[in-house]
């Protein structure tokens, strides 16, 4: 259903409120078919809001958007589809993990998509958001420059929770 609308009715997103209503109806569908997913979204929201300087808003095409001081970290549509924008280099590395895919619309951009389907996906979604958060959060600091140059150093800046993803990014960059 979601894929059909995105593939064939994508132009409707330019009608004011249409994507938001579509997202609301998706939420009703999820509530009936997979209510746990909405709890996971609440938990992700709660966790991200614990990060310094973050807030949430409604994404322009429907869904929950996470921001850090006015810059988008990523957004989750109500069917559990997480979209995050990285640099093409980071995206390439993430694609090699096999867990994320090209963005469902902008395949050639730095955007990636990740479907939250199981409980363990919630943690991975948080890792993806954390990775982006680190990218923006540390943008003007010395540690961030180190992070961009050497992912090994970046890992030491992160919470243990987010270690696995950053670790895999580092390993894949080295390959």
């Amino acid at each position, binding site marked *: 259903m979601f894929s059909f609308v995105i593939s064939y009715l994508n132009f409707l997103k330019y009608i004011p409120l249409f994507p938001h209503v*579509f997202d*609301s*109806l998706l939420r*009703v569908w999820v509530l009936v078919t997979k209510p746990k997913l909405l709890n996971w979204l609440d938990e992700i929201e709660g966790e991200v809001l614990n990060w310094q300087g973050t807030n949430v808003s409604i994404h322009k095409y429907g869904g929950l958007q996470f921001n850090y001081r006015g810059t988008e970290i990523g957004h989750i549509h109500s069917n559990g589809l997480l979209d995050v924008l990285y640099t093409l280099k980071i995206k390439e590395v993430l694609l090699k993990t096999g867990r994320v895919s090209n963005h469902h619309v902008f395949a050639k951009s730095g955007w990636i998509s990740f479907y939250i389907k199981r409980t363990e996906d919630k943690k991975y979604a948080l890792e993806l958001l954390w990775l982006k958060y680190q990218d923006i959060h540390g943008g003007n600091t010395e540690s961030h420059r180190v992070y961009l140059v050497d992912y090994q150093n970046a890992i030491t800046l992160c919470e243990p929770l987010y270690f696995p993803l950053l670790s895999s990014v580092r390993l894949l960059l080295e390959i």
Partner: protein
Amino acid sequence: MKKDIYEFEVAKGFILSNIFAFAIIGITKHFAEKQGVLIFSEFVIVPFVMGVICAWSWKELGMTRGRMTWVSCLNALIGIGLSAIILKEGAICLLIVSPLIFGFMITGAFTGRAMFKKNNQNLNVSILSLLFVLFIADSLSVHQYENLVSDEIVINAPPEKVWKNVVAFEKIKEKNKFWLFQAGMPAPMATTVEGYYKGAGRKCIFSNGYIFDEKIVTYSPNHDLTFDIIGQPKDPEIMGHIDIIRGQFLLKDNGNGTTTVIGNSWYKLYVFPVWYYDIWAKSITRNVHLRVMDHIKALSEKN
């Protein structure tokens, strides 16, 4: 938070939002350019603001996404139920309108939640003022919409044989295939005619006994049967929402023993937004056409 306070706040959202909605609909009906016209704002802005009102009432409750979606759905059901009682809308109408009500009410609730979390009074007032301006502009606009639905079928019989089944036909015994007919929407059953001439009365009888009174305005045997609808049943499913103005059957001899039959219907809509309701109007009219035309085909191809 105590359970009774929680329930009171939830109920407050339901009550305030529904009072707001029916007050607005009442005011709009009173000042409407034409009685019975239901405008875009009533199906879009009203449920959206109902959601915002709920979000305001529930802002201290710390509702989860799932809970907020459930209670918004419940509020939408309450609104739809009250529409059946107060506005005397039919079940099929309410079924058709429900995706709009559910969609915009939940969107309003989550937008309201985001608005009240930010606690930016300027932004909140701006959003509500914009909605108010949109509502006024829509209420003052002229609402008029007419459309034509056309369908075509090829029948393996010459026009002379098809013609007699076009003007009037015996009862349709075929089971309804269209889901709305199966859900209880009246389906065409039979057509009778007073005579085979221009000006003759014609009656289109529907499954629940409702009758559309028609008058033949063009009678060109084997070519063109056009009729105006002069009396429409007072059915709550269609009353004031759609008027079927004219119907037409055009027959084209294909020169190989077959006939192309084109069925046309002209209608006027009194419910807006057109981008939503016209999809339904077209689909229903098309299925009326197809049920009748398939029947004409079966009768004409019978030996």
